[in-house]
């Protein structure tokens, strides 16, 4: 177990290192002198000097990386030359919204997927199972950006439900009711994609589990259906679900970009897309770095969690 965690930890460090190199190198993908592109052609020499110092641009590229990573490790991701605010503080203000969105969508997705998948798995190829399988397969083919557009079109435009349309977002602390209403459609959108994934994984895993001998054993002991389903069948199947949920985080964040963009919810996604639109490259770089490392850390955490639930994984 310890050896497994240690090996994963070494890999984690390697991946984070590669992400940092990749994020650092992004600035050099820009055509021409980074300083000119970032600041524009009419930049004052003073600003240029600041940027050169900030990025270490007059040094060899390997040294530049160490200047940059040194700053990053001290929590300094640079100062945006467009908004004149520090990139780190912008990110700190934005990321709780992403977390709230992910949390809400996952609660919805699990609340729908677990009972439905268990019910489906009890009678594979029954009416309910066929309906749900066909429905989830269809949902699989509807990208989040279409779901959110259609939801906004129907709920906030045609039905006129208040506070669900674009730019109705307020922070949780200022008015939690409006906050939750404005996040309802985005959460449902993100939940749909997760639901399909969780439903399919849990359903097929449960069908396999229910054919195991220990289930027949439990049945022959006369245990109640409920106890068999939850205690005996769901527990082993939940490992697959947990693993899927961990891998799904990256997709959730990307789906979050889309819904935030459409509704003007100022999370990391919205901030990223507007930073790209306004050529605020340092902010883009900062968000890319933070989000990528975040995804990798969350994946690592879920891996660790699954190996705790199912010790067989770490012995592989």
């Amino acid at each position, binding site marked *: 177990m310890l050896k497994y965690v240690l090996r994963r930890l070494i890999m984690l460090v390697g991946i984070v290192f*590669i992400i940092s190199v990749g994020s650092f190198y992004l600035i050099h993908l820009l055509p021409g002198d980074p300083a000119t592109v970032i600041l524009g052609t009419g930049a004052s020499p003073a600003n240029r000097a600041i940027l050169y110092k900030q990025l270490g641009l007059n040094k060899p590229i390997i040294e530049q990386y160490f200047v940059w990573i040194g700053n990053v490790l001290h929590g300094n991701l640079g100062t945006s030359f467009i908004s004149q605010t520090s990139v780190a503080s912008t990110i700190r203000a934005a990321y709780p919204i992403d977390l709230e969105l992910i949390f809400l969508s996952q609660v919805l997705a699990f609340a729908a997927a677990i009972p439905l998948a268990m019910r489906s798995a009890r009678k594979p190829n029954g009416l309910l199972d066929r309906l749900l399988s066909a429905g989830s397969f269809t949902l699989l083919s509807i990208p989040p950006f279409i779901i959110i557009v259609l939801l906004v079109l129907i709920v906030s435009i045609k039905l006129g439900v208040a506070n669900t349309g674009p730019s109705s977002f307020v922070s949780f602390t200022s008015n939690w009711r409006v906050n939750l209403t404005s996040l309802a459609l985005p959460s449902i959108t993100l939940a749909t994609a997760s639901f399909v994934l969780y439903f399919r994984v849990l359903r097929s895993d449960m069908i396999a589990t229910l054919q195991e001998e220990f289930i027949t054993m439990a049945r022959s002991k006369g245990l109640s*259906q409920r106890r068999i389903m939850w205690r005996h069948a769901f527990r082993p199947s939940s490992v697959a679900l947990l693993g899927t949920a961990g891998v799904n985080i990256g997709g959730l964040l*990307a789906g979050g970009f889309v819904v935030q963009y*459409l509704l003007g919810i100022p999370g990391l996604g919205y901030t990223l*897309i507007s930073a790209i639109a306004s050529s605020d490259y340092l902010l883009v770089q900062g968000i890319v770095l933070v989000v990528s490392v975040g995804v990798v850390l969350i994946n690592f955490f879920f891996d660790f969690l699954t190996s705790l639930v199912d010790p067989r994984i770490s012995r592989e």
Partner: protein
Amino acid sequence: MSDLLDQSPEIEPLREQRLGPLFWICVGWLSLNVLGAIFANVLPLVNPLYQNYNAINAGPSLHHLFGTDDLGRDILSRVVFGSRVSLAVGSGAMLIGFGIGMPLGMLAAYRRGRLDTILTAVMYVLLAFPAIIAVIAVISFWTPRTLFKIIVVIGLASVPLVYRVIRSATLAVATKDYVTAAKVQGSTDRRILFRELLPNIAPIAVSFLLIGVATVVTLEGALAFLGLSVNPPTPSWGNMINESRTVMAQNPWLVIFPSLALCLFLLCLNFIGDRLRSYFDVTEVKL
């Protein structure tokens, strides 16, 4: 006791696997899409960029079967021309992904040894990288954006996934008796790779290819929706949906038709891929 019998897992009745009519409908729809994209120029369609100021935000009519957008452009024509972007990205990116990932995956699984260890470790690290964020990052910095760059970036991002699927598929085949027999006969490595392994992993490769195309097209759609794909006025399904955001209330058709086109396209790809996979019954390979 009867309860016990009722609840016991049902055994799937043995029946001949058929592809079914729905499969062929999907194949037909996809072919129509492909033909439409290729021959969009010669089809009797209005120029997708032509702005008819006498018909702005018009609903579906005989003149404009799908209606017009806020600039008076024909939506049907834009949907047909828009499919070109999706198809180009889908096929181009998968060509790169399979072109690199497939030979590497097959070689690694066939040769094993150090090559396999190193390649698999590298791909594993790349897989842990959140690909979508990497794609957005590279596309936003690598200016100016062109269709070619988008295809290259998405294609490269798909290599580790293709590698993993092909490698595990090849591994399942490489230990079969007929491969050993071919080796004993003294067949060359190239012959074994092309004549023994390739035909046997082809079904898995094809079904994964279709699902890969669907994934890539979705990704391009999302990028276009975020304004990060081909620049307007060139139509693509994603950027049509993006442009319609502001006039959604007055003209819902502008959202509905490109969304429908994209969803049907994806549904058919996913359905065919899924059906092929169960048709060839590739259960021993974990995808």
